[in-house]
């Protein structure tokens, strides 16, 4: 045949569709936010304006909890969880729920970003389109990636960042099978956005002349952004914990958090909303506030973001990271200007860019995403050298203090962060029922030793489960090594019953137990096999040998492209 429409072409074609739909979703959120800002902008100067973020957050929470009935969350961890655990299966409602809820939260002044909501929306679009076409798990995961990349490419007009973020953070696997359709989706997402709202770079900037002094100074900036990243991560978690321990309706907690943001924003308006206007001013070098105000803004934005997201508002941390990063860069620039006034430092806008990259890389622990995102949203390729340095050092330092990124920490702690081709992932894809060996001879407790010896001769196993003949309840196990002394004494054949010599302190496993836990238990007790018991009845044996065999097969399936 001259031409074959194979699976890869199918995936690329559907990926383009998913990328386009995700791009439209991102555009819808963008337009929604602009409309909200225009609508509410007239009231921001009024004394009661501080309650607006509270009302927005409460409405957002009510919408998610009561109307859509979708659990709260940032968006990105939910996508990674679905990719790790369920082959990218996501609910249809997730394709629009976060767009509306985050529009309410951010549009009313909450300190959060629209990127994580569009990531979730795009991922759900990809997942549901995959379900319509009845694709398999691997293809569905690729389409979830397509949705993510298309959405991120559209919201930032940054196709490479969309691709890199998806592979680095969401999928965690650099393979051609994933990269090609995701790249295509990223292009389509960005193209849809460019068609409908023009090809604009998010943050235009001046031309920067990067000299060695700047590169050296970046080392300090990397440390600063790493520290601020760790601070933001911990503030968000603390905020989550505090809010979790307060027993109030979720919408009321969101309203309290939102009002707190409103109060902070009343005095420091730069912390409100996604904050892109402030970033633009900083990148252009026209942000006029002094060092102390900038320091205050860094901490105020951290506080506002913690109150917004930790107390039940809807949105992501991308935009707050960009804002806090640019404040940090500015703060650092002003600080070194005071320390070394004689040095002709590059314009502060350059440090704002580098600060953004440092924060994004630090908080996501994804250095490539940080680098490519900043290069694309600023068009500033000339800062690439210090950008790489800041991103790499910030990620490394953050990793030393926080082994898992903000998004992944909960997943790692619960054992849900399962990257492809890893031990945990292979084990998670196997189940006890697939590994049960059923060729064991079950013996009754009141069998005489002499009868047992005859049965034993027919079996190739060393283990014999013992059960109650009437109730079929599992009572224990006979291991030949343990009863060897009795086996060679024929005098005992008619006088000893199995219940007298069986081991009743046997560790058992259930059909629903995790294989990683079972393996840990086997290692701890130095066992090579364990009985599987369900409803107090013996089901079979599970052994390390069978596990290794199946493990290898599963690994081949996962790595066979």
């Amino acid at each position, binding site marked *: 045949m001259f031409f074959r429409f194979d699976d890869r072409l199918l995936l690329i074609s559907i990926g383009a569709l998913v990328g386009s739909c995700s791009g439209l979703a991102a555009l819808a959120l963008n337009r929604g936010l602009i409309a909200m800002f225009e609508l509410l902008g007239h009231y921001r100067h009024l004394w009661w304006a501080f309650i607006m973020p509270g009302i927005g957050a409460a409405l957002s929470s009510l919408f998610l909890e009561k109307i859509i009935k979708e*659990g709260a969350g940032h968006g990105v961890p939910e996508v990674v969880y*679905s990719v790790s655990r369920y082959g990218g*299966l996501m*609910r249809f409602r997730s394709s629009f729920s976060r767009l509306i809820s985050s529009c309410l939260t951010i549009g009313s002044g909450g300190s959060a970003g629209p990127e994580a909501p569009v990531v979730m929306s795009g991922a759900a679009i990809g997942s549901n389109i995959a379900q319509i076409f009845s694709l398999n798990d691997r293809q569905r995961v690729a389409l979830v990636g397509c949705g993510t990349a298309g959405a991120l490419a559209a919201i930032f007009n940054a196709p490479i960042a969309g691709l890199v973020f998806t592979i680095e953070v969401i999928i965690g696997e650099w393979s051609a099978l994933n990269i090609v359709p995701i790249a295509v989706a990223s292009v389509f997402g960005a193209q849809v956005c460019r068609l409908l709202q023009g090809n604009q770079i998010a943050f235009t900037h001046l031309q920067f002349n990067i000299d060695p002094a700047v590169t050296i100074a970046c080392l300090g900036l990397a440390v600063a952004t790493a520290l601020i990243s760790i601070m933001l991560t911990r503030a968000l978690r603390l905020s989550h914990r505090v809010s979790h321990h307060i027993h109030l309706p979720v919408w009321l907690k969101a309203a309290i958090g939102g009002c707190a943001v409103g109060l902070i924003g009343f005095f420091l308006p730069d912390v409100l909303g996604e904050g892109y206007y402030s970033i633009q001013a900083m990148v252009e070098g026209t942000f006029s506030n002094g060092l102390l105000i900038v320091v205050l803004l860094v901490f105020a934005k951290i506080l506002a973001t913690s109150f917004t997201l930790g107390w039940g508002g809807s949105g992501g941390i991308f935009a707050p990271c960009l804002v806090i990063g640019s404040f940090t860069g500015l703060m650092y620039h002003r600080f070194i200007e005071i320390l070394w006034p004689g040095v002709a430092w590059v314009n502060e806008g350059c440090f704002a860019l580098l600060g953004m990259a440092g924060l994004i890389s630090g908080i996501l622990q994804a250095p490539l995403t940080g680098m490519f995102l900043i290069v694309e949203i600023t068009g500033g390729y000339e800062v690439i050298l210090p950008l790489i340095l800041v991103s790499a050092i910030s990620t490394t330092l953050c990793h030393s203090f926080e082994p898992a990124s903000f998004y992944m920490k909960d997943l790692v702690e619960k054992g849900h962060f399962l990257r492809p081709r890893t031990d945990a992932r292979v084990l998670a894809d196997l189940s006890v029922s697939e590994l049960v060996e059923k060729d064991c001879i079950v013996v009754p407790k009141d069998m005489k030793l002499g009868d047992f010896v005859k049965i034993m001769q027919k079996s190739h196993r060393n283990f014999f489960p013992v059960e109650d003949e009437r109730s079929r309840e599992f009572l224990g196990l006979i291991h030949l090594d343990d009863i060897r002394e009795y086996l060679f004494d024929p005098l005992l054949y008619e006088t000893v019953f199995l219940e007298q010599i069986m081991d009743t302190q046997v560790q058992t496993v259930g*059909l*629903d137990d995790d294989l990683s836990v079972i393996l840990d238990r086997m290692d701890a007790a130095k066992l090579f096999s364990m009985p599987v018991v*369900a409803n107090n009845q013996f089901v079979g044996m599970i052994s390390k040998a069978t596990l290794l065999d199946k493990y290898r097969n599963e690994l081949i399936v996962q790595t066979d492209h």
Partner: protein
Amino acid sequence: METRLLHIFRNTPLGREVLLQSTYFCKTIGVNPVIYLPEFIKFLMYFENDVAQIDLDGSYLIAPETAREHAVEIVRSQGLPEPNFIEPKNFTASTLPDIPVNFDFMCCPRTISDLSSKIGLGYIGPRVRRIVQSARFPVLIAGAVYKPWKSVAVMFGGSSNAVNAFRLGVRISRLSGLSMDVYTQLGKHSLDYYKDIIQKKNLGNEMDQYVRNWEVFDSGEFSANLYNVPHDALVVLGAYGHGVIKEMLFGSIMEKVQSVLPNNLLIVGPKYQAPM
């Protein structure tokens, strides 16, 4: 391997009746009941190619302090050992547990998301329909009042799901030792057409060995003919077709049966694979 039935327990008089039906089913065919006592108003079921969010009717969370005790009491009253309870291990969100789907059967009332006042003939809730459509296991839709069944009645219309329903009926008849009847409404096809399907699917022996009576309705309205189905039979039938349009509908036969018969229904969806 252990055969298991999933039951979502509602600690109310209606929930007691449904659990009694579940337990009777388990006892009759030798299945172990596995019970989930909901702690949250919603949960997720991740199927092979679909994820269903089940938003429970508020009555599922009534009196949680006595739910376990009541469930154990009901199961034991039928002479079964203490049941296993599911403790969700995975959560998609903090208040959204994921319930496993690796079961052999599931028991539901006609609706689990809507108010129980809606339960009646002719109504099956959207969530129950979604489960039937996506699950690899058949769904036992229990009547509102406990009533032991004494035979198995299979609705056989010739479709692939009907063939699966026939196989399931045979399995239940074999496991329970109860007799099985098959019901077919002749439409545009003659009886030979249905016999041919049975032969092509290699089910001739099962038909001879397990089926007490194959009742064929060659005239009259199907709804009226359903009067012949015994009041104390477990009705086994297929739901949904395999086409895009058909998957959106329950199937006309299914809709008629569920709106006419008050019996316990065991529904086989399109994803079900019948073990023999």
